[in-house]
Every structure is written in C-alpha cells, then in structure tokens.
C-alpha cells in the first residue's frame, strides 16, 4: 500500500447551525487514503462520520457552515473549488458516493438502467445507447442480470437496489468511492454478498474506498485501514491488522469489547455513559468521562500521537510511549 496519498483530508472542520447553537460535527480530522486502499471510517451515530462523507461529496445540508481545512485529491485542494468546477471535475468523475439504497438513493419513477447510465451522460457526454451499454456492463460487474436494467426500483429486492446504487457509482470509473452505510439496512446474507462484490471490485479495478459505517464486523470485511471517530474527532487510525488485534485507544478497546462475537465465550460488555454533546464539547479528551483509564492530563486536549507503523492515536496514555512522535 505504498505510494503517495490519493486523497488527503487535512484539519477538516465542519459545523451545523442549529437553534441551540453550532454543532461542531467534524472537529479537526486528518486522514489519508492511498490508491487501491480501503479506509473504514468507524463510529457511532452522531460521531461525524456521515458529515465527513457529505463534506467529501459536497452534499452537506443547507444549515452546514462551509467546511474549513483542506481535502486534497492528488495534492490539489478540492474544498476551495467553485461548485461548478467541483461538479465538473470531482463529483462522480473522481469521487463517487454509494448511499443506503433504502434511503431515497433511487428515483422511484425512472428505470434503474437509465439511472445508472445517467452519470455517464452528464459527466462523460455519452449517448443514451452507449451509456446503457456501459450500465449493462456495470450491472454485470455488481452481479445483476442485464434484464433488470429496464425495471423500476420497486421491482428490485433490497439487495439488488443496493447493487444498482453501487453500479451507479462505478460507471464513471472514479478513483474514490465513498460508501455511506452501504449494507446496514440489508440482511446478513445480502450484506455478505455485497461485501464480496466490493472485495472483487477492489481487487480487479484498483479503486479506493472510503467505507463509512457503524458496523465493526462489516468494516473488517474490506478495510486496509481503520479510522475510529468519536465526538467529531478521529481518536485512532491504524492498519486493520493493528486496529482489530491491538486497538490502542481506550474507546477502541471498549468498542471492540462491545461487539457480540460468535467464537468467544465471554459476553460483550457495554460502554457506560453517553458521548458528549457537540454543542459544547469538553475541552479535554472527549472520551474522558467514560474512560476507566482517565487521569489528570485528560482534562487537556490529547495530542495526536503516532505509534510505530502509521498508527495514530489521540490519547494521553500513549503520548509518552516509546517510538511515539507527537
């Protein structure tokens, strides 16, 4: 997984205006994604992971303040691009999005084939015929029979709809596909089948994925690297190997312990407490309230510490560990 980063997120900050004040949904996130790498952004609801996805695609709701920081694609900042240039040069051309198919991702009154072909006609200027031809290929790639091109969304099962949404993201051959909870509304078998499709596409096409999910087990199906978010910040970012076997942050450890497992005899353990209110987040470590390992230093914001091998953790416990660079 060497090579220069394809996508770099640098100190991204993003807030929403609400009636009670500003909610700082994303608060200084740094991430990088290399070519043909899958990065899982994990976190529980309200941690800012979906806002991050929306900021990448610029599909933020109207009450969001313009994000600050940088999002660099091949070294060029795309956050500062005009809306028109972003639409022409980035969205669906370089970065595509896969939403939950259950959530209005498809227009109910347009045949799925036309919807999948649409990005080609908009962004690549294909004729309808050529676009449909490519859409058929994309359907084959995600495992739907070409006959379904002429169907309407409601005639497809949930799994097939999700595959169609995936095909829509793939037709324009983007470099990065952002997957926002792509399987969370689906059944276990369908989930597994779609994860198989994603794995195959990653192997064959060399696409980079950003997988936004709250499902730790699903994230382990594809992730090369994992970033865990908590209360608007990335608290740990590591290779999947390191994250799933030796998580460093106390929150990561607790979260891993809360996953019900089939092959372990000890029951899962809950994490007491609730995440902080993002209207007024604590000054120090945001997990401190719930953390059994907290000590005096935790009332100060913890620095991002890099452990060996691109393993970043935002926790005072690790700030003095050997080999750490702050």
């Amino acid at each position, binding site marked *: 997984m060497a090579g220069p980063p394809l996508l770099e997120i640098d100190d991204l900050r993003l807030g929403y*205006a609400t009636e009670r004040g500003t909610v700082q949904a994303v608060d200084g996130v740094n991430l990088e994604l290399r070519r043909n790498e899958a990065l899982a952004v994990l976190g529980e609801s309200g941690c800012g992971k979906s806002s991050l996805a929306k900021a990448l695609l610029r599909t933020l*709701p*109207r*009450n969001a303040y313009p994000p600050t920081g940088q999002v660099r694609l091949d070294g060029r900042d795309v956050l500062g691009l005009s809306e028109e240039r972003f639409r022409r040069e980035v969205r669906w051309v370089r970065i595509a999005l896969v939403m939950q198919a259950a959530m209005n991702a498809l227009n109910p009154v347009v045949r799925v084939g036309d919807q999948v072909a649409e990005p080609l006609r908009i962004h690549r200027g294909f004729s309808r015929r050529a676009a449909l031809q490519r859409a058929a290929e994309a359907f084959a790639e995600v495992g739907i029979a070409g006959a379904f091109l002429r169907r309407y969304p409601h005639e497809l099962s949930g799994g097939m709809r999700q595959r169609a949404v995936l095909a829509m993201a793939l037709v324009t051959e983007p470099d990065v596909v952002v997957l926002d909870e792509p399987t969370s509304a689906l059944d276990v078998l369908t989930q597994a089948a779609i994860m198989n499709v994603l794995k195959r596409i990653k192997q064959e096409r060399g696409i980079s994925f950003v997988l936004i999910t709250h499902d730790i087990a699903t994230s382990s199906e594809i992730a090369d690297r994992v970033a865990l978010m908590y209360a608007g910040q990335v608290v740990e970012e590591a290779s999947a190997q390191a994250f799933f076997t030796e998580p460093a942050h106390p929150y990561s450890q607790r979260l891993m312990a809360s996953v019900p497992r089939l092959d372990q005899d000890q029951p899962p353990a809950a994490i007491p407490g609730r995440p902080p209110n993002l209207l007024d987040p604590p000054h120090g470590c945001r997990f401190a309230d719930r953390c059994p390992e907290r000590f005096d230093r935790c009332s100060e914001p913890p620095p991002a510490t890099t452990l060996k091998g691109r393993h970043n953790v935002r926790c005072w416990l690790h700030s003095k560990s050997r080999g750490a660079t702050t």
Partner: protein
Amino acid sequence: MTSWLEGLARLRKYPSAVAGLLLIALLIATAIYAVTAIPYSEAQKLWRGGDAWQDLPVNAGPAWIDRLHGGEAARTVRASSDDATIREDAFEGVRVQETVLELDFEYGGFPSEVNLFLNSDFESRQPFVRLTWRTPDGEELFLGARRVGATERVSISQDQRLEGRLGYPPQVGLFTDTPPGTSEPAVRQGTYELVIETVQFEEQASLEADLVIYGQVHGLFGTDHQRRDLTVALLWGTPVALAFGLLAAVGTTVTTLIIAAAGVWYGGWVDATIQRLTEVNIILPLLPILVMIGTLYSTSIWLMLGVVVVLGIFSAGIKMYRAMLLPVRQSPYIEAARAYGASNARIILRYMVPRILPVLIPTFVTLIPTYVFLEASLAVLGLGDPVLPTWGKVLHDAQAQSALYHGFYYWVIGPAAMLMVTGLGFAMLGFALDRIFNPRLRSA
C-alpha cells in the same frame, strides 16, 4: 403539550406572526367592546332602523376623514323645544305659544337636510303652527303654516316652493346670504332661530318640536341610506364574523379529523364509505346549496353555520388528513398501544388525532377567514342573517344602493377593510405557524 408551547414561543421570531397576532387581538378587542357596549337586543333594534336613526343624516361620510383633510363639513345640529323658551298668550279663547328654537351653525359646509319633528298632544282639534326662519342678521323668512297631527315630520329641505323662493335647495338657501346666481353660495355662520307660533285650541294640548339640521358627515364610519350608523354594523360584524369563522373552522376541522382518523383506523368498508361520501360531497358546490337553503328556508346565521359545518365535514380535508394519518396508523407506537390493550376510541382520539394536530394548527388558523369570507359572500348575495348587523350585509346594501356610483366609498371601504384585516391577521399568523410546525417548508 410542551412541544406546542415551544412552537408558539418561536412565533416571536416571525414579525409577520406578531403583526398577525396584533391584528387578531385588535379584532377580538373590538368584538368584546361591541358585545359589551351594544347588547345583542340593542344591536338588533338599532339595525332594524326606523326611529332609532331619525336624527342621523342619510349617506353621510365618516367625520374623521373630513377632518383629516381639513374640511369643515357640517355635523348634525339639533334644537329641541325642551331647551327652548316658550312664550304663551291667551287670545280669543285659544292659546298662542311662541317657541324659539336656537341653534349655532358654525360649519364651513352646508347641511345635507333639514327636518322638523313635531309631536303634539291634543284630544280632537289639531294645533296650527306658523314657522319662521330667522338668520343671524335678523332677517326673517316665512317657512309656511300648517295643522299638525300627533306626530309630524316637516321636511323643510324637501319643500319645493321654498326652494323656488330661495333659489337654492332649502338646506343651502337657509344658511347663506349669497344671492342666487351670483357665485358659489357661502355659509353664513352664526346663530339661527326657528320661531314656531302654535295655536292650541284645547286647554291641555301641548307641542314638542325638534329641529334637526343634518350634517354631511357622521361618526367613525358614516351612515347608510336608511340613516343607520355604519359603526354599529362594523362593530357588531366583528363578533359575528369571528364567531362564525371560529365555530365553522373548529366544527369542520375537529369532526373531519375524527372521521378521517376513524376511517384510517378501521379501514375496509368504513374507510371506503367515508371516501366515497367525500368524493360526492367535494363536487357538490357549497355556495349554491347555501343560496338555495337561504332562499327556500331561512337565512339564519345559525342554520348557515350548521350547513357549512355539515357540508364542510366531508371535504377535501378528509383526503388530506387521511394521507397524513395513514403513516401514523403504521407507527410502532400505535401497534404498541394495541398490544397493551388500548381501545379503538382511545387509539383514534389519543394517539392518532394528536399526532397531526400541530401540522393542522396553521391550516386551521388560515381556515377561519375563509369561513368569515363565506359568511360575508352569503350576505352580499342577500342571504345574510335577517336580524344581525354584519359586514356582508353592509356590503350588500352598498351594492344595492350603488354606493360607489354615488361616491359613497366609505360604505364599501369600511366593511371591506374589516374583512381584509381579518384575512390578513389570520393569514400572517397562519403562514408563520406553518413555517414553525411544518419544518419542511422552513429554509435553513
């Protein structure tokens, strides 16, 4: 419900809502003032006209408008024999009384009309009067002599012969010293006197006289062709309109909502029946039905209200509420309520209806003026309540008397303004409420 109160508290952020609330408060204050200052029976009596208004001018404009542009139009001036000095002489077996009615006329404009009301009390022989007009300069003008019945109205301004003698209509000629045919007549201000010499043939006979010099303007809103003070109608129209609008809106909304909820809850043939009834009812034209009932049966406002509510129940609202309630019926909390044993009535009234009430508040508020306008339209069509003064009836009279053609703009503007204020107040409040309770319309 706290969430409602939160919504209402948010109203302060919308200037249009505040303005709307102020207008509504003004209307409510007017309504309360009207029903307390002029009791219902009084209002009815006043509006029936006749004696109650004999002292008011016909088709007079509002006084304050005249004052606004510095006019000096005449107000109504009265002089009564009760306040006058009466000299009495015995003469050849009859009594001769001389009553001098004095009045100060200080206006720049001429009066609109001059009437003398005479009430005499006698057994068999009518008294005989001689009327003489005395100007501030002391000139005397004989206005005629006549026998007087028990009640007599002497329309001095209608006297054709007098007009011929004066060269002007009497209400002008009596108050000017400009010779006719020279220039525009100018008012001679000062104290005028009407001298009434009465010959009484009986011992006990008596005579009361009231002279009324009618003004060109009157009161807040002027008067109509029957000398009725429009203020009464406009004041009393307020509680009538508000009550009609509110009752009709409440009646239709509440029953419609409950019926829609019951249809959605029971489904099947109940729902189908309600839907078919609604579809039939929607294509029935409301106004012609009301006109028919008003023409053939009665125009009582309560009957109209009842018909409006009954016909309003199975209205398009049922379709709208049904669409809103269908997803509510599927709510897990409704299922939970069934699972813990809540009855059908409880589910409909406690769990389904309240769920969509906040969304209905704006609709409800904007519905009120709709019914106010409906009531006014009926009255304009001549189907107003027979006894109550309403805005619509004023408009109806104005139209019947070609008010605008004659330039009696105030006759139309008064009630129209009240209707517009009502519509505006509720609409401004309703639209603000809509933005609060239907957040999808709210732009961030």
